[in-house]
């Protein structure tokens, strides 16, 4: 969460561009990762991420703080955009062939081939999971959000998130083991 986020949100709601810029800078990488790991294609992920923030900016005046973190609103827009993307493309979650472009822009990843190979397997398996499992794995194990934060973002109880993350990890392990 951004420091002084409540005040920044109020300013952004009043139309202050700089305030929305702060929200953009803080949440854009997180939303981009979320979209990229669910889509698997860099260009599409960039386009959808842009649309998410464009939508958020346009609707900022109507944003109502209902006790959920601001990020939950952005995640909700992102989830809807990803769904629209798959619906429009009628895609069956195709995996990109060969070397992933996801890591082409990432910094600090280990150069070891084995580890890179493992990450590719994990990424590919993640793409085949149910959207609900993808969401909880990204929030809990990639973004390392707390159970409460993940629950707020997913609109579920903490208990439900615990169960969901257990099932999601089991499903991910099964896919990796089979591949």
């Amino acid at each position, binding site marked *: 969460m951004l420091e002084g986020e409540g005040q920044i949100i109020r300013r952004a709601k009043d*139309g202050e561009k700089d305030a929305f810029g702060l929200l953009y800078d803080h949440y854009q990488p997180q939303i981009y990762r979320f979209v990229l790991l669910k889509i698997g294609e860099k260009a599409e992920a*960039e386009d959808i991420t842009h649309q998410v923030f*464009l939508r958020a900016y*346009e609707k900022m005046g109507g944003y109502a703080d209902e006790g959920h973190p601001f990020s939950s609103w952005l995640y909700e827009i992102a989830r809807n955009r990803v769904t629209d993307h798959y619906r429009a493309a009628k895609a069956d979650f195709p995996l990109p062939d060969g070397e992933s472009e996801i890591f082409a822009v990432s910094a600090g990843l280990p150069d070891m081939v084995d580890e890179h190979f493992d990450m590719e397997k994990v990424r590919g398996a993640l793409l085949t999971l149910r959207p609900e499992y993808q969401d909880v794995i990204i929030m809990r194990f990639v973004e*390392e959000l707390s159970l409460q934060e993940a629950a707020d973002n997913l609109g579920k109880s903490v208990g439900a998130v615990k169960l969901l993350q257990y099932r999601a990890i089991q499903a991910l392990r099964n896919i990796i083991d089979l591949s």
Partner: protein
Amino acid sequence: MNLLENLKQFKNIHPDSGFSADSRRRVLGGRIRMQDILRTNVPMAFATLALGLLFVFAGTRFFTGGQVAGIDPRSLRAEAQAIDIQIQLTDLKYSSPDNGNETTPANVHGVKSSMSTDFSGGDEIDSALEALSE
């Protein structure tokens, strides 16, 4: 393979800096938000409309000396007094449920079936109405 460690490594993925800068610029400057349009233009439209109505009203008062042509109260009053109000009670028929005979106002205490009157004949109308109500 340590699955959770691998997942954690995905946090090192960052969007391309060129994309981020371009997207940020387009989001913040590319489109005009509907709320901004409403916030600035609707009050302006109302203010312009109110000002326009004020000018129309003031102009009308100025050119007519406070009285709108055609609705001068004095001429209206004179016109009203000159009207010869005539009330025609014609073809007034009443059906008796008992014998099926038709009864006209003429049969009721001698009230005329056709009556021409002005306001001075108000007593005559009152007596006719009383007779009818009995």
